[in-house]
């Protein structure tokens, strides 16, 4: 009950953050508790009453939806990222460009389309109109980006779409194949304070620290891209229910 | 010493158990398997609830259907010894005996000659020892009624007789109203003052053992007491005798009156063997092959066709009876009884 929220207040904030932030957040502020996972899964948990103080998503739409439902305060963008292809060091399928993914029998691992990175993957393929050629090679739809990375690193899959930042976390195990900039979707991370959070102040502080110099520096250090326009202006909520 | 007065109906799976009984001394219940013997004990002990009637020990009422009164087993002053003794395997002999009555345990251990087993586990005991423990446990509670379910059946042939004698003494000592269930007529005769024969949940006959042998109420009782039972059809004859035409064809005569389908009851020791058939109608004779010859001490049991005769070893030798041979079995018309066949 409330008591154990109190205890959490003492124990620091509970931050629900996209899987791609797994390394940077704890490195930047190790006093908080983190729950990393697919942004959509985290959103769902918050909807179901998960006691999060801050929600950091790998896209802007999910925070916007929660904001629309009044579950979180007004979201703010805090960083950007780019999409890359990773292949196992051994590169069994001999993947060198994105076009190789169209070769028959290549095991391409992607994230669930509801997961931000999954959405971005579909988008980039569409931009390069490779969707028809590559999507037949999809072998799985993982629940978050790190699972894609893991499956590729393990060599289970021949290739996978992840954020460039994730690719850097397992240097020895995967080879990165860059994607053309023109095809890159607009990958913007947004975060918000959870309305029900008993630690509004501390939560706000955390958000600000991320937006602040140190926070941005840490993000860049881990390969994230600084925001195009430093001013974090609110985006208007998009009222659409994610339904296929 | 209060008497037990029981009169109740207990619905069983396939039939109803209907019983009226007054017990001051030892009553044995005999009957075939499934007759309802154990169920009687269950009802008296409060382990099963009758649908009708009344059970009381003296003026202490245990069950009364009218008054919706049903005392739980632990509220009845009853000692029940189970068919397989149901000793607590996880408790030592002493703690088994102490379970019901903590008072004079050692005394009981001694009394039943199981003092030396006090600390051992029931699982290590012989059949006879187990039975003694079970009795001690039941009696240590100093009950007003003693119930024994086949106390001898799980003993093997030659411990049986000795244990039976022990039991006989104990029953006399404690002089409690006692009901004991058994399969075996000899046990019943040895242990009980009265024997009740139960079949299909109804009490066929309740009488002293000798009485049952002398005047069996029906075919079942007769064969149960070890008599030969010859099935046939009876019709009166000119002289005072009844003629019975047996299923096997022969005609036999009895001094008993009878009509229609009857069983001719004759005990093995009333049958004599010979070589020549008799013509005298007062003396029945049945000719047949010797189907078995069993020597029991000085007596020989010979099965001739449908009938078993028990004769002295000497006469058996004289006749040179042996399997397969032909002999004549004779018995007096006055030595037979007729029982109706249901």
């Amino acid at each position, binding site marked *: 009950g409330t008591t154990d929220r109190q205890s959490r207040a003492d124990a620091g904030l509970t931050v629900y953050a996209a899987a791609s932030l797994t390394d940077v957040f704890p490195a930047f502020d190790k006093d908080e508790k983190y729950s990393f996972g697919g942004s959509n899964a985290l959103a769902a948990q918050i909807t179901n009453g998960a006691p999060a103080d801050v929600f950091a998503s790998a896209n802007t739409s999910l925070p916007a939806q929660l904001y629309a439902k009044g579950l979180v305060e007004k979201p703010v963008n805090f960083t950007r990222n780019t999409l890359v292809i990773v292949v196992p060091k051994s590169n069994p399928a001999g993947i060198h460009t994105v076009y190789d993914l169209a070769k028959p029998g290549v095991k391409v*691992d992607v994230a669930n389309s509801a997961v931000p990175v999954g959405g971005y993957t579909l988008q980039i393929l569409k931009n390069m109109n490779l969707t028809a050629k590559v999507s037949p090679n999809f072998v799985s739809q993982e629940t978050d980006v790190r699972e894609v990375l893991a499956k590729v690193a393990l060599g289970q899959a021949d290739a996978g779409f992840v954020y460039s930042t994730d690719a850097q976390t397992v240097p020895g195990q995967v080879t990165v194949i860059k994607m053309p900039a023109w095809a890159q979707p607009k990958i913007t991370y947004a975060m918000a304070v959870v309305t029900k959070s008993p630690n509004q102040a501390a939560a706000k502080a955390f958000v600000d620290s991320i937006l602040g110099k140190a926070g941005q520096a840490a993000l860049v250090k881990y390969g994230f891209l600084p925001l195009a326009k430093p001013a974090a202006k609110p985006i208007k909520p998009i009222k659409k229910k994610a339904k296929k | 010493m209060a008497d037990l007065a029981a009169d109740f109906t207990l619905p069983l799976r396939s039939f109803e158990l209907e019983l009226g009984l007054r017990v001051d001394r030892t009553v044995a219940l005999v009957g075939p398997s499934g007759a309802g013997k154990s*169920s009687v004990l269950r009802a008296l002990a409060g382990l099963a609830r009758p649908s009708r009637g009344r059970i009381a020990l003296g003026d202490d009422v245990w069950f009364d259907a009218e008054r919706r009164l049903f005392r739980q087993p632990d509220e009845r002053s009853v000692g029940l010894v189970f068919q397989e003794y149901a000793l607590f395997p996880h408790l030592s002999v002493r703690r088994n005996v102490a379970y019901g009555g903590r008072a004079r345990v050692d005394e009981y251990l001694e009394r039943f000659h199981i003092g030396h087993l006090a600390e051992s586990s029931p699982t290590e005991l012989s059949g006879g020892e187990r039975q003694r423990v079970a009795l001690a446990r039941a009696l240590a509670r100093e009950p007003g009624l003693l119930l024994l379910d086949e106390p001898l059946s799980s003993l093997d042939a030659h411990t049986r007789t000795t244990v039976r004698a022990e039991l006989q003494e104990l029953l006399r000592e404690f002089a409690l109203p006692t009901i004991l269930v058994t399969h075996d007529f000899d046990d019943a005769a040895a242990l009980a003052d009265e024997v009740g024969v139960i079949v299909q949940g109804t009490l066929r006959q309740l009488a002293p053992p000798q009485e049952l042998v002398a005047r069996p109420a029906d075919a079942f009782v007769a064969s149960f007491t070890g008599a030969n039972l010859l099935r046939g059809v009876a019709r009166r004859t000119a002289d005072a005798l009844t003629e019975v035409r047996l299923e096997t064809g022969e005609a036999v005569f009895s001094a008993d009156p009878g009509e229609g389908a009857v069983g001719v009851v004759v005990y093995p020791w009333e049958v004599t063997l010979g070589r020549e058939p008799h013509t005298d109608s007062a003396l029945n004779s049945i000719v047949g092959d010797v189907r078995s010859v069993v020597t029991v001490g000085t007596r020989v049991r010979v099965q001739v066709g449908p009938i078993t005769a028990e004769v002295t070893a000497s006469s058996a030798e004289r006749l040179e009876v042996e399997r397969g041979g032909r002999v004549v079995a004779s018995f007096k018309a006055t030595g037979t009884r007729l029982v109706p066949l249901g």
Partner: protein
Amino acid sequence: MRKALHVVGLFAATALTLGFLVLPLAALFTRQSPVELVHQLSNPVVTDALKLSVVTSAIAQALILLLGTPTAYLVATRRFPGRSLVVTLVELPLVLPPAVAGIGLLVAFGRVGLLGSTFDALGISVAFNRTAVVLAVAFVASPLYLRAAIAAFEALDPNLVAASRTLGAGPVRTFFRVALPLTSAGLAAGAALSLARGLGEFGATIMFAGSLQGVTQTLPLAIYAEFDRDFDVAVTISALFVVITAAILLSLKLSALWRTSQRTSRSLFARLSWS
């Protein structure tokens, strides 16, 4: 009053326990009207998953029966050193977290696993395809069957087997004419349980086989996927599950009940009244 008290306590505890176990399942049916539930079932996600689950479970079950039955028979009828170790091994997957099973399967049969290269050489691929699902399902489901089967074969009166042998029937004939018919009930029970368990396999599958609609996304994976996407669909599938498994178990119970009711009375004092 002491007596009344203990009875009350007894019933209270029971009510609480059952309530706790039943409520979550009942709740699944309260969110949507039956109509909506049924309607949801036509959702392609659900139908695909259902098809896949049925197919893979069927294959897995077939394997389990074919290989599990002789195994159980052997374990049950022979006394050998380390027997209880074997039985334990058989039971392990029963209590292991599916995640562990998944990881285990990966390191064993995965492309980089122990046998990965072997399989590649054989041209068998067990990654991200039905084969993987079947393996995962078989791995977590077989123990339930094996356990039941072993128990059934152990309960089989050895005298009947002996009798068959002395009547001139060889081991094989004895097995099919005596052992199998007399244990069929127990085996059926085991099969039903393992079937239900297999249908519900989640953790191992998602790690070992991945989750792709129509290929490796079984019902439980669909639940998990839809949990983030469309909660109602997740609830629907869950409800569907409860119905299926309940049906399996209940039919089992009833058949068992029916069988026993044919046999003769269990012990005399069964009916002893307590309160």
